[in-house]
């Protein structure tokens, strides 16, 4: 699903430049649930942004769903994001003046789906995350956990190949975090590929594979052995 070879990325900092990713290799298979860990400055967010086509890489190869990503213009990137990728952000990034249903329906709007159809589909996904009754509430009328559930529904609604989550529980208390992670687990169980960035061990433990980043390279890549199978199946 995702194949990365010798990926480099640096950011200009005044006259010098900051080398963030230093020849990174990574492969994510379909249906995998991986967590990327690392301290701040390790390059984990940069990696996720490049995978998410929100940012471009300098060197190396990146294949998304078998397609080589290169010389991507904004329009092509937008179409690929819309088709293949779903995003979940730490700060939810819901549009404040749109209600839950409208927020969830937005990716479908950019897919060119008819209004009635996309509202129907958006409502289905809100139901899936347990927020059907909150469909017509604005984001500021929802709790943090509810907002993130709306964001999850929005990420799922366009039927993407990969869901990318950047610290999805970073702004939530531990109880709510567990709820959101459980939801992500369920989504993975249905076959969705998930890439989650986190710096919390507990959260990472819920994935299938943990990748640790340090100074722009992968320092460890290990499978998680779920001693408590309840998390995966329940």
């Amino acid at each position, binding site marked *: 699903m995702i194949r990365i070879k010798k990926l480099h990325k640096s950011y200009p900092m005044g006259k010098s430049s900051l080398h963030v990713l230093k020849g990174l290799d990574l492969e994510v298979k379909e249906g995998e649930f991986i967590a990327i860990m690392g301290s701040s400055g390790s390059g984990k967010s940069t990696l996720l*942004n490049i995978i*998410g086509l*929100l*940012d471009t890489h300098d060197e190396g190869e990146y294949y998304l769903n078998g397609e080589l990503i290169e010389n991507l213009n*904004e*329009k092509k990137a*937008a*179409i690929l*994001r*819309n*088709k293949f990728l779903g*995003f979940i*952000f730490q700060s939810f*990034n*819901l*549009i*404040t*003046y*749109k209600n839950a249903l*409208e927020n969830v329906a*937005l*990716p479908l*709007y*950019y*897919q060119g789906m008819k*209004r009635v159809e996309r509202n129907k589909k958006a409502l289905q996904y809100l139901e899936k995350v347990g927020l059907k009754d909150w469909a017509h509430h604005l984001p500021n009328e929802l709790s943090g956990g509810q907002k993130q559930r709306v964001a999850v529904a*929005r990420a799922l609604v*366009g039927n993407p190949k990969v869901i990318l989550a950047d610290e999805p529980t970073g702004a939530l208390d531990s109880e709510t975090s567990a709820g959101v992670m459980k939801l992500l687990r369920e989504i993975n169980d249905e076959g969705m590929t998930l890439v989650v960035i986190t710096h919390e061990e507990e959260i990472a433990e819920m994935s299938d594979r943990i990748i640790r980043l340090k100074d722009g390279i992968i320092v460890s890549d290990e499978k998680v052995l779920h001693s408590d199978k309840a998390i995966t199946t329940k």
Partner: protein
Amino acid sequence: MFDLDRWREIFQAISKNKLRTVLTGFTIAFAILLFTLLFGIGNGLKNSFAEMFAGDANNAIYVRSWKTTKPYKGLQVGRRIQFKNDDYKFIVDEFGDDIQYLTSLYTKFVKAIYKNETSNYQLRGSHPDIQFLEELVVEKGRFFSEFDLKKKAKVIVIGRLVEKDLFGRRSALNKYISLDGFNYKVIGVFSDPGGDNDERYIYTPLSTLQGMYGNTDYINNLRLTFRPTMSNSEAIAFGKKIKKKFQEKHQVAPRDQSGIIIQNMAEANQAVGAVMFGLTVGILIIGLGTLIAGIIGVSNIMVFVVKERTKELGIRKALGATPKSIVGMIIQETILITAIAGYSGLLAGTAILRFIKPTLEEYKIIDPSVSDVLVIGATITLILSGLLAGYLPAKRAARIKPIEALNAG
């Protein structure tokens, strides 16, 4: 291309962000309001300026005479040139083809008596063409004719105010008025767009007046209008030609400014035209300046609007919005706001103009208004300015990387 979904998005963005919409709209509405007011008042000024020159035919030429100031062919300085009836014939013979209306004018101050009412007026002896030269409007009865002139009929046509002075509310028609002791029959009453003074004249056939006072053939001056098809420069040349011929006839030095005096409306028209042109250009500059100020104001606000929406636009991009759809959305939104706000400004402006019209007219600013063409033109300008004001910030917003937009707080 009409995209209902796009419009829905825009209406939602506009109505859910009222303060932003109102701020943007207010700037453009205010600019257009000012534009309309300035243009309207400017037009009013132009109208009053034009009105000042109404009342006399604008293709008129006056031929007057006075004392010479230069010796010529052995003749003394200070000789008074006196026009006579043969000068009228001279003009007809020399320039008949280029003349529309022509009259001699010979005037006397007379004491008018009707029953107990007495007043003094200028009695003007002329040819019937004076009616058209002075643009007199016959309100009652008729003007005197060539036939009256030939017969030296003792008939008069009096101004509206003469009738009011002597007859009050009664009609003067077919009554007899005594002028310096002679009775004249009133055959008509006229009004004159030129104003009050011009409505206190009494007109009679030239031959009648000349016969009454010493059977003279003197006249004071000649008035004519040139052929209306003549261009302004042709008309100025025509006036100079008349002057030259009259100077030859009366043996006045060609460089003498005083003996024969020609007053040519064509020359005045040229001056009036220049002033009107200046006024129009001035109004245009002020109007355009206001519009440009409005456009700049809106552009500034749009920069802030886009900045404020950076995060929203980033979210949209992450969800699959193409740069084109972002630019399109912002431009469409801006155009909608500017068009609606601009039109409200225009409506408010015309309403205010209508409201202050009576006050302005006290200050001699007549009919301050804006034309339909201007309204349509201004609306189109507005829509274009909305396009301009929205395009650059939108373009920049579309180019910003989604990740930067998302991090923008």
